[in-house]
């Protein structure tokens, strides 16, 4: 059972590459990225431990149900809608980023809009499934993709083209003071736990989460890799020129004896899968948040017949995503993403701490 929690954590951590996080960190490499990452580890760990404490107090209940326990409907509904927006934005940024990447590397002659429409269609379909199905889908996807991704990462770390001097040079800048933007970006790597705001509905009554140390350990290791490896490949100066840093980095690798020679294609296919899973999961949660606003809604984690409301809500998400790509270019999208990351840090901290306070109060009152 525990493993489903960690699937979310691992997915969130691995997907950081798609959300411009390495690029943001690299931008601050001389001005506080290292110390920001250290701060982010602390923040991420504290938040994840706090949050897991809350969800273990209410097994089988998602965040909407917990909020309804304590707060009046008038307060809860705006909160839920806001949450839905947060989840939706996160996954849509990743999806849009990916559509652009596909347009660049796989289908240069098809417009990014059409590619995005295809991705949206399949995500709409996938997100309308029940929570349980989404969870199984995430499991399947991760089990198939993660080993290969780890293999590529290992290959990159061990590559002889990596310049350790460049990495050491950047690491020497650890004394700089941390800054908000890189802290927000780096703390994103630890944020997979927050998906249990909805998926906690699936937890059995005697749910006990173990091995919580995985969150900080995996997050830290992955953060270091995703920050330092591109520096090792592209040097301390050139590294900042690439927005899709990791796709360029994976292009610097070749598998001499592999079936597919250029690692970038394997990498892109794997991350396409991850992005689809991430978006599906994000939209599904956003959809559940929206649905929880209606008083008639009864959460059903294994609903076989997909209700029409699911289709309507996710289709709206799809259309909004398409509109975003239509109105914003690459640069604006990136700024939007970095702004969103900062906002996310605050919203997430407030949510988790708020929930924690409610939870502690409730425990006191009931004991």
């Amino acid at each position, binding site marked *: 059972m525990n493993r489903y929690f960690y699937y979310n954590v691992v997915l969130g951590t691995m997907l950081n590459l798609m959300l411009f996080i390495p690029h943001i960190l690299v931008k601050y490499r*001389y001005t506080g990225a290292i110390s920001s990452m250290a701060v982010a580890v602390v923040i991420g760990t504290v938040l994840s431990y706090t949050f897991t404490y809350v969800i273990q107090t209410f097994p089988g209940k998602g965040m909407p149900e917990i909020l309804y326990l304590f707060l009046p409907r008038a307060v809860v509904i705006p909160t839920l809608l806001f949450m839905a927006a947060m989840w939706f934005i996160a996954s849509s940024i990743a999806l849009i980023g990916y559509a652009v990447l596909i347009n*660049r*590397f796989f*289908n*240069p*002659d*098809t*417009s990014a809009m*059409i590619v995005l429409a295809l991705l949206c269609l399949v995500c709409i379909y996938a997100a309308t499934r029940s929570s349980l199905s989404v969870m199984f889908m995430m499991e399947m996807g991760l089990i198939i993709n993660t080993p290969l991704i780890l293999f590529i990462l290992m290959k990159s770390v061990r590559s002889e*083209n990596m*310049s*350790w*001097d*460049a*990495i*050491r*040079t*950047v*690491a*020497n*800048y*650890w*004394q*700089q003071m941390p800054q908000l933007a890189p802290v927000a970006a780096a703390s994103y790597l630890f944020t997979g736990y927050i998906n249990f705001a909805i998926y906690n509905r699936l937890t059995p009554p005697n749910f006990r989460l173990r091995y919580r140390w995985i969150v900080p350990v995996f997050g830290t290791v992955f953060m270091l890799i995703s920050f330092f490896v591109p520096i090792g*490949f*592209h*040097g*301390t*100066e*050139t*590294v900042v*020129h690439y927005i899709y840093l990791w796709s*360029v980095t994976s*292009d*610097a*690798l*070749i598998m*001499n004896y592999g079936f597919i020679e*250029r690692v*970038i294609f394997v990498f892109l296919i794997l991350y396409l899968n991850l992005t689809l899973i991430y978006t599906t999961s994000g939209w599904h949660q956003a959809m559940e948040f929206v649905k929880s606003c209606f008083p008639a809604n009864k959460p059903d984690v294994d609903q076989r017949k997909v209700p029409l409301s699911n289709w309507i809500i996710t289709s709206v998400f799809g259309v909004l995503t398409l509109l975003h790509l239509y109105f914003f270019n690459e640069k604006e999208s990136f700024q939007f993403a970095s702004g969103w990351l900062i906002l996310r840090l605050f919203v997430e901290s407030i949510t988790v701490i708020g929930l924690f306070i409610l939870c502690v109060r409730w425990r006191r009152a009931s004991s």
Partner: protein
Amino acid sequence: MKHKPSIVALILALLAAALSGCGFKDIDKRFFVVAIGIDRPADNPKNYLVTLKLAVPSPKIEPGAAKAQIESVEAPTIAEAVRLIKSYVDKELDFGHCKIYMLGDSLAQQGYTDAINWVSRRRDIQNVAYLAIGKPDARTIIQSNPPAERYPGNTLFLQFGKDGTESSYIISTYIFDFVRRVGEHGLDPVLPIMRKEKEEYIITRVALLDKEKAVAALTPSETEIFNQISHHMTKSTVTANVNGEIMVLSVNKITSRYKIVKEADGSHMLRMTIKISGIFEEAPMGVYSADWAKLEAAFNKQYEFEANSLLKKIQQAGVDPLGFGLRYRATHKGSEQTWKRWQTIYPQLKFDVTAKITIEGTGISD
């Protein structure tokens, strides 16, 4: 609701009709570019002369069956030249399999910035393609047709890649590596120089470049030492002249290590230790019974001298292809000052190379 599936199918079919033709291009309607040469023509140095080697696929794959089509066009910019070439050929150009980007010698001398800019911006160009300098110009090299090629460009691919030949005179440079060196503080690019002799390619020398143009070229023997120091190339040799006899050691293992230290008088010294072990490949009879320690000492002395003069030559060219500057930055406090200081240190840097050559065997025991 009864006809739901048929309606869905109809919508899909309409969508499909709207989409069709988006980038659908069969493999036989594409021309694979296998190598590109970029030159500055002698009569009009403001223009670019772009030469493409296009693979002509044939159903038969056997030695000598490779056919290639060469197209070259002169234009004020590279992008324009490539676009012009498109109107010369009957199929769509595909750069996806292009592995060789060759800069003409004169282009490298005059400044390569625009060419590299084009290469690194184009999305369909591999980051792991090879970059090289063609002498006397890139076009001559691209045009030549090695007689035993199985398919077009194969000789070039194999010569640069590690799948085929592994020569100590070849330093292959990936595009991403080159681009990183162009931007990096404390690390400068190098490129192999390719020449043509009869219908074959020869790579024996390496060019040193600064951030804008080529500044010097190493001789073949210097290239070998450079390769030994920077890439620990084991398929190489060490040569020494002992008492008028030439002895050649084939290398089994190389390690090199260096440190930049501050001397008592405030000047900086680079101390480099190179450990090489190997087996005699060429030596006079009687070497087995000779005193190996003495031989090693002779080897050490000659190697140290050669390495020292190589480092001096590089230093005098004002470039840093071995990344001493980056090492200095990596081992000192992270700040702008460190880099500024290094820029004043490097021209005055002194070198102290210690070679430790070990003879493992003599091949035969006389």
